[in-house]
């Protein structure tokens, strides 16, 4: 199980930036499709908020993956009381 935890760590590290790139592409496309004026401003604002929120979360996923890769989750506090 610990090997699987580590191997998947790499996947989570890649999933973080991939999701941010996907969100940027969607933001660009949907803002471009919105009608000029209030609609465009609102769409840009909504996507700005979504990116603002999801970029740190994606960074968190990368860190999670890094910890997994380094074996930090091989033993949880219930087993080693390292908190």
């Amino acid at each position: 199980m610990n090997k699987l935890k580590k191997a998947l760590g790499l996947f989570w590290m890649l999933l973080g930036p991939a999701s941010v790139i996907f969100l940027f592409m969607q933001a660009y496309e949907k803002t471009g499709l919105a009608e000029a004026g209030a609609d465009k401003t609102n769409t840009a604002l909504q996507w700005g908020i979504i990116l603002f929120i999801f970029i740190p979360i994606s960074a968190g996923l990368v860190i999670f993956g890094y910890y997994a890769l380094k074996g930090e989750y091989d033993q949880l506090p219930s087993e080693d009381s390292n908190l």
Partner: protein
Amino acid sequence: MSTEPKQNSIFKVIGASSLGTLIEWYDFYIFGSLAAVIGSQLFPADAGASALINTLAIFAAGFIVRPFGALVFGRLGDLIGRKHTFLLTLMLMGGSTFLIGLIPSYSSIGYAAPILVLILRLVQGLALGGEYGGAATYVAEHAPVNKRGFFTSWIQTTATGGLFLSLGVIVLTKNLLGADDFASWGWRIPFLLSILLVGVSIYIRLKMHESPMFTKLKAEGNVSKNPLKDSFSKKGNFKMVLLALFGATMGQGVIWYTGQFYAQSFLENTCKVDFNDSRYILLWGIAFATPFFVIFGSWSDRIGRKWIMLTGMLLGVIFYRPIYQVFLDDTNVAAVTQQDISEVSSPVIVRSALTNSADSLVTTTSRVTLLSGMSFTKVASYTKFADPAKAIVEAPEIYKDKVLSPAVFWKFVALIFFQILLVTMVYGPIAAFLVELFPTKIRYTSMSLPYHVGNGVFGGLVPFIATLIASFAGADPLSGLWYPIGIAAVGFVIGAIYLSNKKPDHGEDHEDLHREEGQIKYQEQN
């Protein structure tokens, strides 16, 4: 060491905490339920800046501010204690809700009205971000270790209870005053009423005592000096914050919002089920399923939290598409034949001129009743051009306001019940799960952030992202479900592989403070 909690039974603790949390949910939901009325009273009629502020109010409070509230009040709760912090969040929530009810209309004070709404809405979001963690921590720290799931599950029922209460007060006020008076000034009553509810809750909470675990920690001088730093800069704890988010609250958030919000939106907007029918279906589903919050919370005390929560996520991944396909199939009336129809009302034909044109739009509306008992409104329209050389252009027929047959109605209630049952599986044990993942001295801070990111961001964005996906080229009405299914699937995989079903051991739990000090009457009552 203080033995103040002697006078409190665990049920008083649960009651006081749950009532306050329920009122906070009530306050948060009435804004959403009355958004249209607020928009007409406090925002200018034109779009532009008002729409911008409205968007900010809804998006910012729901998605940005809640996690910040978790950080601000979580830190405070770990520094000065749980009781005073969640008293503060309650006052902020109640005060801001009351003040929204007092804001003069846009016609009186102009743009100050929507700006004040935005500010007060942000305060609401901050307060909600701080409330839940405090209430869950407070109850868990009073509960016997082997009953934490059962006792904290009562807190978990309050989000649903708040939704019920807000809908009930709004419907009652509207029925008593009439639609016109309600739209004119009556909408303020549910906001103003909040101050009474909050007043009662503050009175009750003031009589409560600080949690025994925090009191002990304080007496020993072990309170964290910098909970934010201890929570997020120390790898040993930060890795658990990330695990809580990606392995539990992220999947829990999307299951919660899909079952309780997206389902109703799908029935109403995609399936075109009648306004009342879609709400009654949800209300019945919630009413039947709510006791399971407590059942699964209690069960998690015996078999562990992990697999109950993950089973809820997995069942959502497997069954969401089949369930929503049934919703679509059973409300699809486009293919009904003459043999299926029992009655068609006399058509109402309306001819309206098109703007800046001599052409006109002709709309024919009729009410169709089927032998099964289902009825719907059929709208057929075509454009008649002034130039007789141009052929008539028919628009696709629209079917709406579908009132379901009793058999389909109860079938849908069962399907909504099943979805909310999944909600109770993922949500019932999660407070106890989060509380047990972190040590007492930084518990409020550490558990609040993943909870509000999981629910406020991942869950709160279900309607927005699902609608967005459904708008992609080649998408079908079920495509939006890929968002909750994908997030729940990732959450399930991470949870299954990385979470432990054992309760993390922070040392303090072994002491079972409450029994040792005789502070809780739970044992006496049982």
